[in-house]
């Protein structure tokens, strides 16, 4: 990037209007009125950076942070519901999330910095569609879904159908919005872990991140089921399906754990990156982190039962 480009970056954000609707229907009406030229923001931490870099140039901003009722985390009949305005800080500190979706709390605690976590939302992190997003990786492993509202009505999309490509998801914030995330609450005998490798502990993109969700019967020394996700190792957050299959009902043994980690690493196809390290290194680390993730899940399960 030349200095010239830097100097050309504008001081102002160059949108024509800034709306702060007080209801979802009003937000949808604004999106409809501007037909693709209006963009939803909540925390705005990604959109403002993209606008500064001229990767995005919406004419109108629809800031939804004043819509009441969307800033709650609650549990209803085994489902944790995270509202569209719930920030990373809120998620990191929520006792409900720590108990029943610990990997999400851990993921949220790694996003950006305390400042960014106070502004940015989990829903925004999902909509940005980055394959290494610290909340997308655990949410995909946890089997979460999002509730999407457009002028055509409401529908629920599971996250395994949500991510389309780098920066591209089933929603782009110009035609609709996500009102909440639905996460199956973890039951007894089930736990999750999020592990992240980065060059520093704050404000550093992950070299690699892994989430392991695991349930096991410790008495019979068998895995029940698992869910393993990795990123950024492909164009979207990635599920290690073969490793999950291998663990299903398998005995809890060194050999199984190592083999599952090896299989999980096979789905990763990370790029050589000056920021994140070379592909070979990152693949080796994928295997390493998955193995560690499985072990930590087992330790947590033992802790709960013991």
């Amino acid at each position, binding site marked *: 990037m030349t200095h010239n480009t830097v100097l050309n970056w504008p*001081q*102002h954000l160059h949108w024509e209007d800034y709306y702060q609707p007080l209801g979802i229907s009003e937000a949808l009406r604004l999106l409809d009125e501007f037909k693709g030229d209006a963009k939803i923001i909540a925390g705005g931490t990604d959109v403002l950076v993209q606008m*500064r870099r001229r990767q995005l140039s919406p004419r109108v*901003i629809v800031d939804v942070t004043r819509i009441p009722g969307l800033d709650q985390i609650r549990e209803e009949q085994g489902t944790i519901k995270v509202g569209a305005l719930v920030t990373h800080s809120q998620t990191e500190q929520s006792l409900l999330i720590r108990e029943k979706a610990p990997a999400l709390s851990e993921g949220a605690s790694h996003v950006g*910095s*305390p400042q960014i976590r106070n502004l940015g939302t989990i829903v925004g992190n999902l909509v940005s569609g980055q394959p290494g997003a610290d909340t997308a990786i655990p949410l995909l492993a946890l089997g979460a879904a999002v509730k999407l509202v457009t002028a055509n009505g409401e529908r629920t999309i599971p996250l395994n159908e949500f991510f389309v490509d780098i920066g591209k998801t089933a929603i782009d914030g110009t035609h609709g919005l996500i009102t909440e995330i639905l996460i199956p609450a973890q039951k007894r005998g089930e736990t999750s872990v999020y592990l992240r490798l980065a060059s520093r502990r704050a404000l550093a993109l992950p070299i690699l991140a892994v989430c392991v969700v695991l349930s096991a019967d410790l008495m019979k020394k068998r895995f029940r089921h698992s869910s393993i996700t990795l990123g950024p190792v492909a164009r979207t957050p990635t599920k290690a399906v073969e490793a999950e299959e291998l663990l299903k009902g398998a005995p809890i043994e060194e050999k199984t754990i190592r083999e599952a980690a090896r299989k999980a690493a096979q789905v990763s196809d990370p790029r050589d990156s000056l920021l994140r390290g070379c592909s070979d290194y990152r693949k080796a680390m994928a295997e390493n982190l998955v193995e560690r993730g499985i072990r930590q899940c087992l330790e947590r399960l033992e802790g709960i039962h013991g």
Partner: protein
Amino acid sequence: MAKKKVEFVVNGQQVSLEVRQDERLVDVLRNQLGLKGTKTGCREGECGTCSVILNGKIVPSCLVPVMKAEGGTIVTVEGLEQEGELHPLQRSFIEKGAVQCGFCTPGMLLAAKNLLDHNPEPTEGEIRKAISGVFCRCTGYRKIVQAIQAAAEIMKDSR
């Protein structure tokens, strides 16, 4: 561009301003209110020197559209001093030599104040986490941490 009216409380004072509605809070604070203690560095929320406390939370003011602050309560580094007396954190930063080039200092002070407001007796780890969103490129972190620890002690004794 049509200007909009915006009102908020800055350092205890109610202000009412006409602003460009595509402006960032940091630019309004600096250019319209003359509060140049809030620095502008990366303008992408990475460096943390533009940090202010908005409604009790520390945020990067370069990523806050000014309209979002409407009706809010803001504390900038200028708000730390009370009736001509420096805040214990400010005194402590001076005494411990926690200021080198000074560019990160406003963000560091506010991150520390925000921490001590919620957690008056933080551990070293909690201090390091609380200031992790502000970059000190002089890398003078050790003295900054010591200054915050010393200020916490002073504030504890005066409670």
